[in-house]
């Protein structure tokens, strides 16, 4: 497998640049927009000297770019500010809540790709049959239903599946914080099963829209590739149908699908907020939502940064995957990158 290392490095550099830019944007939103952080922290009745002290402590008397440097320094040293809501270091909060959300996101992302791709292939190969038309209609509807609507109805029909585990079930020893994984590796199988059942409804609610989207793209991609000359050529060379479908059709058709997958991951991250709320998942998104509603500045900043970081990382991984699939992208040097 030949790789153009320049390709990987360029993508990496771009990601880093995006992260830096993101941090500046977030910082700007937090500092430049109206609102006095000190008043927020201390309340309206604080004494003038307390305000003054805090101002110095928070470096608010320094020029703005210096404040930015301090802020970045704080990120890397673990000082993420105090949450107005929980009154402790935001970093501690994040460590507590993030794993649950990660678990949900990973589950949703997995369900998404595992259902969408086969669906798209089946529909594409049977173009214009009943199966194909059913998939097309379902995908139209699936794209139109917001995930929080799905979540509301799923939660209504499966009311016992709120939270990561049923009440009364002992949570597994904390290794990663991902309930299902922890239970599995510590051999608490009934706990693992319980966690699995709990993760399916919210993950499905999150994944439904993306599944519809990707199944559609996969389908039209498959149809297009079936009509190409190389498919006829492959048939004429006597390759078995199984090989043609699973290998020679799959790989080129996946390329546009995986590209969309990157964008859909973004929507997974965004929609997790509401879905977690509805399913009382107790994850990072719920924490973020509470932060937003109670105007907890430091927490909001952390939430937005982490969402951005997740997105940039997943995009980088998706870029690499597309590069793996499509040699033209990874081996050709492009002048407008």
């Amino acid at each position, binding site marked *: 497998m030949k790789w153009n290392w320049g390709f990987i490095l360029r993508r990496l550099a771009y990601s880093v640049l995006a992260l830096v830019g993101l941090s500046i944007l977030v910082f700007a939103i937090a500092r430049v*927009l109206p609102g006095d952080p000190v008043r927020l922290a201390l309340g309206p009745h604080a004494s003038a000297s307390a305000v003054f002290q805090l101002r110095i402590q928070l470096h608010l008397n320094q020029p703005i770019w210096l404040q930015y440097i301090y802020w970045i320094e704080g990120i890397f040293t673990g000082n993420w500010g105090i949450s107005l809501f929980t009154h402790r270091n935001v970093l501690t909060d994040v460590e507590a809540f993030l794993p649950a959300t990660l678990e949900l996101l990973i589950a949703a992302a997995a369900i998404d790709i595992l259902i969408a791709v086969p669906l798209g292939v089946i529909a594409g190969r049977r173009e214009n049959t009943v199966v194909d038309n059913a998939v097309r209609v379902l995908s139209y509807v699936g794209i139109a239903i*917001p995930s929080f609507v799905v979540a*509301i109805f799923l939660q209504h029909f499966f009311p016992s599946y709120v939270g990561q585990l049923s009440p009364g079930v002992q949570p597994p020893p904390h290794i990663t914080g991902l309930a299902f994984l922890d239970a599995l590796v510590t051999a608490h199988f009934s706990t693992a099963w319980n966690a699995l059942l709990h993760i399916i409804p919210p993950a499905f609610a999150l994944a439904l829209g993306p599944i519809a989207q990707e199944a559609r793209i996969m389908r039209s991609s498959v149809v297009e590739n079936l009509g190409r000359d190389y498919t006829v050529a492959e048939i004429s060379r006597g390759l078995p149908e199984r090989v043609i479908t699973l290998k020679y059709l799959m790989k080129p058709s996946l390329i546009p699908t995986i590209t969309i997958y990157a964008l859909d991951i973004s929507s997974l991250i965004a929609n997790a907020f*509401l879905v977690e709320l509805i399913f009382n998942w107790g994850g990072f998104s719920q924490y973020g939502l509470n932060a937003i509603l109670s105007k907890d500045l430091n927490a909001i900043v952390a939430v937005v940064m982490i*969402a951005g970081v997740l997105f940039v990382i997943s995009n980088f991984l998706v870029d690499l995957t597309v590069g793996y699939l499509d040699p033209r992208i990874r081996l050709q040097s492009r002048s407008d990158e």
Partner: protein
Amino acid sequence: MKVADSGAAPSKASGSLQRRTRRQTLSRYWYKFKRNKISIVGLGVVLAVIAIALLSPWIVPYPGAAFGPPNFAKMNQAPSPTHPFGTDEFGRDELSRVMYAFRYSLMLVGVVLGITVIPGVLLGLVAGYYAGRWHSSLIMLLANIFVAVPPLLLALSIATELTPLNSSPDILTAMVAVTLAWWPWYTRLVYSTASSIRNEDFVKAAELTGASSTHIMFKEILPNILGSVLTKVSLDGGWVILIGAALSFVGFGAPSPTPDLGTMLSNGATDLPGGVWWTTLFPAMAIVAVILGFNLLGDGINDMFSSGIK
């Protein structure tokens, strides 16, 4: 689809000749749109929603449902011939409220798209035409940063930041927030198409004959990106409504008692365990129907501009 501007086309052509060819072009577009029956459905749904939104004060069965006083005697009644969608927790007719709610939704769409599309497209044209130069890269870097954060999240945080401490969240901040989160998508879309088109031969030809950059951007490049932009505008209609509903679901919607699909949904959801299903189902269906309509319409517009041979 590459449409080279017929720069030599006689602008002094007789008016009737120009009118005739424009009508032919329009009817050709319409034919392509019509081909897929589903697009007609989409168009119908969108037109119906617009009509309902515009006419609702005059056609709702219970005009008092939006802002009128609550009538607790009729609270939470199941759907019946007098109230096809039932009544909500304040005894107001749900059907009327849903119809009123379309006004709010469409207003959001109008404002957000009205504000974001034109600047976003302009920025993308500039960035695409001057691709490789520093101001183009700057524009795109800015756009890509905004894009890294999921739009909903960004809108939420901006909305939060903009709300002064002691006031409650409201729709104005929501609209501004969504607008700020939205513009880069148009810029990126236009940039990617424009930057590849600007290297096509017909653009080079126009440059050689001394056309100004404004002319090239608007007369040569723009017609070729029009299709994807219009498609996106239509699909975005659905998206804005979705994000608007999500925002109001968490509290950034129109203040009570103004009917707003997202708020209605969140209120209805609290009553759901008690068996009151109509206050949840109908706003949900309304949201889905509107989004579906815009999506189908967007597909139809896409077909209209794609040079597919059948």
